[in-house]
């Protein structure tokens, strides 16, 4: 299904100029709102940028948030390539957290890190994939709409986790709905610890080796989607399901597998958060990471390079936004959610809105 006005620009301009214009439009609206509530947008932007990238610590936190967003962005993009809109990244990451927690609580005092951590990753991928499998299966075999099903699955995941954490996984004697602290064996080493081992001193941040996995995942994603047989099937199903069926591609299988891969990728967001930073699970650990993934994938146009850049943007917005809220109490985390919404609107729903305004520029160049 093609949406919006078709673009006539050269491909490189579609991939660079339009997203930048859309981003600028989103920031312009944000600036307007900032000005309306009586703050200086320019000053806020400076504070935000310096909070996100101005110090080693800032950069560490920015990259930590970026890690989760890369994974959920890739997750949404995988489904998009098959023509599916997976809104369920949040629920899938949530359930992946359950998988991680169950493995850690069972084995963190018996297994060595070299076994435990890979086991946790497998559990996260498995649980995330399983939670995405059901909507995928329902879409492929029963024709129920993936968007509605994944929305419902987010709510079901939330209720399920609230119940499990509140009644079964809660730390004995604790008032807060969180699990006990995970054993050290399950902790994924932070980048600053790894660097210290090599004699480089970095500020202490939650940025951990999951970040390296995120970059590797981007490379794998590229190979899988554009240079593998399955990737070709995936994109064919996404562009034209009937054509794919005529070409002998098993559409149901492709859809189900795409959703499972998507869910497994979302699961890594839980790894980053639970094993890399908090080392315990509470009821709100996902904190919207699955929803940010939607904006990341849309802005990155479902390409790994774009996803890394837009995940970095959102990582910077999250970290810079936190710093900004210390300086300017009026501007809170919700401002970032607002920007995120605008980016979904401009980059996702209105992606070629500015095309008519700049199409003239490119035409004239070609004529000469």
């Amino acid at each position, binding site marked *: *299904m093609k*949406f*919006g*006005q078709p673009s006539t620009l050269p491909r490189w301009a579609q991939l660079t100029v339009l997203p930048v214009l859309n981003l600028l439009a989103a920031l312009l609206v944000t600036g307007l*709102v900032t000005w309306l*509530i*009586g703050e200086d947008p320019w000053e806020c932007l400076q504070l935000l940028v310096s909070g996100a990238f101005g110090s080693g610590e800032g950069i560490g936190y920015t990259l930590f948030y970026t890690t989760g967003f890369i994974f959920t962005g890739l997750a949404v993009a995988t489904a998009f390539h098959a023509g599916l*809109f997976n*809104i369920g990244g949040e629920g899938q990451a949530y359930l992946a957290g359950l998988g991680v927690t169950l493995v850690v609580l069972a084995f963190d005092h018996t297994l060595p890190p070299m076994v435990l951590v890979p086991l946790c990753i497998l559990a996260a991928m498995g649980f995330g994939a399983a939670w995405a499998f059901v909507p995928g299966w*329902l879409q492929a075999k*029963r*024709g*129920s*709409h993936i*968007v*509605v*099903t994944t*929305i*419902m*699955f987010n*709510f*079901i995941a939330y*209720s*399920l986790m*609230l*119940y499990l954490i509140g*009644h079964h996984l809660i730390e004995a004697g604790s008032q807060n709905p969180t699990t006990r602290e995970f054993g050290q064996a399950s902790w994924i080493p932070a980048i600053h610890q790894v660097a210290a081992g090599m004699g480089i001193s970095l500020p202490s941040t939650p940025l951990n080796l999951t970040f390296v996995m995120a970059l590797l995942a981007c490379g794998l994603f590229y190979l899988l989607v554009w240079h593998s047989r399955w990737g070709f099937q995936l994109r064919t199903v996404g562009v034209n399901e009937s054509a794919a069926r005529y070409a002998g591609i098993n559409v149901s299988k492709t859809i189900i597998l795409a959703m499972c891969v998507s869910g497994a990728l979302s699961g890594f967001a839980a790894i980053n958060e639970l094993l890399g930073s908090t080392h315990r699970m509470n009821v709100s650990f996902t904190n919207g990471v699955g*929803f940010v993934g*939607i*904006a990341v994938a*849309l802005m990155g146009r479902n390409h790994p390079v774009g996803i890394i850049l837009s995940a970095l943007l959102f990582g910077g917005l999250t970290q810079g936004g936190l710093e900004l809220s210390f300086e300017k109490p*009026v*501007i*809170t985390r*919700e*401002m*970032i*959610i*607002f*920007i*995120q*919404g*605008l980016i*979904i*609107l401009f980059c*996702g*729903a*209105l*992606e070629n*809105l500015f095309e008519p305004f700049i199409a003239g520029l490119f035409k004239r160049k070609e004529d000469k």
Partner: protein
Amino acid sequence: MEQLFSLLDSTIRVATPLVLAALAGMFSERSGVVDIGLEGKMLVAAFAAAAAAFVTHSPWLGLLAGIMASVSLAMVHAFVSVTYNGNQLISGMAINTIASGITPVLGLAWFQQGGNTPQLDDDSRFHDISLPFADALSNVPLVGHVYSKLLSGHSILVYLTILIIPVVSWVVYRSRFGLRLRAVGENPHAADTAGVSVARVRYIALFWGGVLCGMAGTFLSVYQTGSFIKEMTAGKGFLALAALIFGKWRPLPAVLGCLLFAFADALQIRLEGVDLPVVGQIPSQAIQVIPYVLTVLLLAGFVGRAVAPKAIGVPFVKSR
């Protein structure tokens, strides 16, 4: 008996915003435009209504502000879906995200209460109103009980909603606009050939959807809690969407779905911590999850089959 009445009474209260939102979704989806932005529209309406009611001390101006805020988001959705032929799901998602971002930002800047609005005083809220003769009839068995305990003593918005249900039903099935609405949602090309402006019908449908969502949001903030609270819609928009699917995109069954979900909600609050025979304590989450599981089962065709309007989600491009 007393308990049953109070249970049904809170069912009506919980169901009202759900019914309004579900009917809003019905207008939009029957015209062929997917609306997962019900949640966001309700949220901005709740905020705008509470803010306006606080400043002007008039619940009616609050309602007006709520409707205006909700309609303006609905028009953004209409622009994306109808004028621009964009992806309606992504647009709905954007509306939800924008709503949960902008409301606390403006709330904090204007009222300095952590993103909420100040508690409204008595004059600026909608009140429970007693229907005539409610007191006199309260001693008549059954009929009197139902009249005075169940029907009387609700906000004007509840009574408006009860009036709106048959009106919407009539509009969709009996009026000229309703015929066009359904035609545009099932087969826009045929409707276009017959001289119906698809874009116009969809804009009008989304406009009324915006109005109804505005009322739903206002009900939450200006009547129920008396102030705007961050994320106060808490999934009600999606619950309404679930009820709409439950009702197979028809007004009366959708209302029934809302009442059912609301009843489950009211029941769950009362069952908290109560030991039942045989099953023991039921965790509240198990009841909360029922509407969502039901919707999934319905969509999958395991329990009946919910078939969406044919042209839903597909932008209409006039053939040349």
